[in-house]
């Protein structure tokens, strides 16, 4: 195998692409990665990881204000936004370097450049200076180019007053007032971060509730919690117009009943979804079918064109790093002919939002389950009744489980409260192993932990709850 001929060429070094490449290397396939910016993709550099670093800052800041409650005294609590951002960037840089090391360790060549499909398995790579870098030949090409913030004609970011996640992550100043457009995971995390650090935050959501993909009950609890923190939440509302001034933006909002409202804010964050990076890769020329900004694939990540695959954000929702990684592994294993590979079951992809309080879920919401024809049993357990939660001083939250009344299948789990993003995997394993309520009831949960609530919620669904 020459240096430019591979079994698999992966375009994009994000959590989909680099994980696919590692799996390919493990399976003994020759593989390369082509990355135009930095290894680790949005996730590591401009998404999951740096925002978690920021949110850790806001969490500690919040706790410091509660110091007295824990018998501590702190005075003169302040923050330096430059330092906060610096730490976040350092975390990203460390991990990006880690990915580069993983590529080396697995002997995966990384081409720093932009890829373009040339047909017949040829990928032309252009270097950052615009000069042709190399042509690689691959039997299989995996497109893992990710996605970027979606924009609308009247909602164009300018990077100064109107931000996307990218600018919101590296603010040069702390806005006094902020409008967040869109209350999905990205919007809500920024809203939570800035609100905790003291900004006046207004969230606009076109749907009738925040975190619209979550269970309705959880959405309702989240909204209440945010409002209690002083966030202003406008559901059923859209942004009509943004009028940029010198150092502020005048925003015209349109309510569901047609009424208009205007407000002026220092900054606007656009978080109205994302769109796939499908342009300038040569997809159209290759004959790859693109549907509403995403590459159309089958259950094995195959596009319409033989030998071309797509994984992760560019291949459609759910737009989550762990979905991309898993899809990458499945795609490569299918190519390698590994036995027993099953297509991705999207209802087993957990969703996490790292706002305060955190939100996490897996499987069907109560409403979806009923709409799908299930007769359901629903269990609930509140944080207020959990010893560890009380000791932590985190008594806001709920763990909800939805079972099929007939079969005992765990259809879904929905959580809000401290550390639920770390807890949800328990229900993920339960779903993957296809446990029923009986196995969950028989599982011994350690005391005192937040996880006990997961047990109690199951017991509650069957009328056997102990501690409420």
């Amino acid at each position, binding site marked *: 195998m020459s240096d430019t001929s591979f079994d698999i060429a992966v375009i994009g070094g994000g959590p989909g692409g680099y994980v696919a490449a590692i799996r390919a290397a493990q399976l003994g396939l020759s593989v390369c990665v082509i990355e135009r910016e930095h290894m680790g993709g949005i996730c590591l550099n401009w998404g999951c990881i740096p925002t978690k670093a920021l949110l850790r800052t806001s969490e500690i800041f919040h706790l410091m204000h509660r110091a007295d409650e824990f018998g501590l005294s702190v005075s003169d609590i302040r923050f330096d936004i430059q330092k906060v951002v610096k730490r976040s960037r350092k975390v990203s840089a460390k991990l990006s370097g880690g990915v580069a090391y993983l590529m080396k360790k697995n002997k995966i060549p990384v081409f720093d450049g932009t890829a373009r499909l040339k047909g017949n398995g040829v990928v032309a790579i252009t270097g950052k200076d615009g000069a042709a870098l190399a042509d690689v030949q691959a039997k299989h090409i995996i497109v893992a180019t990710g996605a970027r913030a979606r924009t609308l004609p009247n909602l164009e970011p300018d990077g100064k007053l109107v931000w996307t996640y990218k600018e919101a992550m590296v603010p040069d100043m702390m806005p006094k007032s902020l409008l967040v457009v869109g209350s999905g995971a990205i919007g809500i995390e920024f809203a939570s971060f800035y609100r905790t650090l003291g900004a006046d935050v207004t969230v606009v959501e076109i749907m009738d509730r925040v975190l619209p993909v979550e269970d309705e009950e959880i959405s309702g609890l989240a909204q209440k919690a945010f409002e209690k923190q002083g966030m202003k939440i406008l559901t059923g509302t859209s942004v009509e117009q943004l009028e940029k001034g010198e150092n502020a933006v005048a925003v015209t909002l349109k309510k569901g009943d047609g009424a208009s409202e205007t407000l002026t804010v220092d900054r606007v964050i656009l978080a109205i979804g994302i769109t796939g990076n499908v342009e300038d890769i040569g997809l159209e020329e290759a004959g790859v079918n693109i549907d509403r900004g995403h590459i159309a694939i089958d259950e094995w990540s195959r596009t319409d064109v033989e030998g071309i695959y797509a994984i992760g954000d560019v291949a459609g929702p759910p737009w989550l790093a762990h979905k991309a990684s898993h899809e990458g592994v499945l795609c490569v294993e299918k190519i390698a002919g590994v036995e*027993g590979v099953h297509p991705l079951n999207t209802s087993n992809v957990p969703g996490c939002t790292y706002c305060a309080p955190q939100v996490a879920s897996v499987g069907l919401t109560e409403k979806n389950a009923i709409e799908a024809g299930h007769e359901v049993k629903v269990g609930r357990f509140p944080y207020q009744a959990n010893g560890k939660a009380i000791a932590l001083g985190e008594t806001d939250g709920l763990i909800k489980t939805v079972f099929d009344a*007939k*079969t005992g299948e765990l259809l879904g789990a929905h959580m809000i409260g401290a550390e639920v993003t770390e807890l949800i995997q328990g229900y993920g394993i339960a779903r993957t192993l296809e*446990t*029923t309520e009986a196995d969950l009831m028989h599982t011994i949960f350690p005391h005192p932990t937040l996880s006990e609530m997961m047990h109690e919620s199951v017991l509650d669904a069957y009328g056997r709850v102990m501690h409420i």
Partner: protein
Amino acid sequence: MPIEILMPALSPTMEDGKLAKWMVKEGDTVQSGDVIAEIETDKATMEVEAVDEGVIAKILIGEGTEHVAVNKPIAVLLEEGEDASALESTGSASPAPPAAEPPAAPSTPPSPDPAPAAAPQAETRPAPEPAPKSNGQAGRMFASPLARRLAQQGNIDLAQITGTGPHGRVVKHDVEEALKSGVAPAAAAAEATSGGQVMPARTSSTTAVPAMPDEEILALYESGSYEVVPHDNMRRIIAERLTMAKSTIPHFYLSLDCRLDALLAARQRLNAMSPAEGPNVFKISVNDMIIKALAMALQKVPHANATWTDQGILRHRSSDVGVAVAIDGGLFTPVIRHAEVKSLSEISNEMKDLAGRARKRRLAPHEYQGGTTSISNLGMMGIKSFDAVINPPHSSILAVGAGEKRPVINNDSIEIATMMTCTLSCDHRVVDGALGAELLDAFKGFIEEPVTMLV
């Protein structure tokens, strides 16, 4: 090159079987033709003979292992001059695998020239099925809790389902697919071939009504007041088959009395003609004559010589009559084929052979599969009359009671005659009332005038 001994297929439909017993142990020298193991399928136990000679180097599948897939290596034979180090070159030299072994797919053929394992019916061996049938290979069933519950609720046997989860584990999806495709109980699948004719498997089996769950039954009896006898294969098959028969076949019953005097007299005269010894000895029983009479009746009423399938009624040309043989722990129904053209002595001798081997569980599947009707005779037990359950895919079964002297009315006067009550159970989908009556009447005619069987 060490030779792998593979799990043989005892019938064309066999997918797996139980390795009942090893007759050799590691280190034993075997000659071609030596019996090395016994394999148990639904009903039959068959001996596996060595094809090559050599030393049993390694036994890969332990005695008593159930659901051993056809063509799976069960032992390794070293040829003369080879020593154990040769085992290194074969992938199967590893010790008997745990049940959770991943599907032995044909991607790694055991050797370029797979040893022709001792297969009694090598020509009928099906192509190796790559489907992972590892389910419960060592007696343990790998299935998700949800799959188990769905199978229980759907009243289907998990062991019949091919698992697609990790290491062949049965998952929800597999059970749902099985329920969708109406997976028939094991026995129905085994019945799918008859005389080389492939019949469509029953796919439209009606929704099974779940039986009373074990927990409910056990709750009704004080623990310790009974002993639990685990089901063997035969008991399970009988339970499944007859439950299916009674819940999917619309049975109705016709009874009539046959006068046996002429038949008994004929039998006495015939048996007196048998040579005292030698290959042509015969001793015809009443039952043999009943077999012949039913075979002749089916020829006379050909529409009753039929089998129901969803796509149409199979009208059979020959009279293949099954005969229930009670054995210790169950029963077999070996089939006398072409009984209409066989002489009574042929039927008699064939029946003796089949019944003898049935009692030893040494029948091959083709000897008890197929047929269009059967006879269940409890006369020797003194039973006067009874209704039998049709043995799918048959369309009828004749329940034969005891021949006994009874007062009968003949020309308005009472006389003593030897009478036998016969009850025909009919599958109404194939045999309507009048047709069944016609068949039974024809049967009665042959019994009462046995000489007409010669026509």
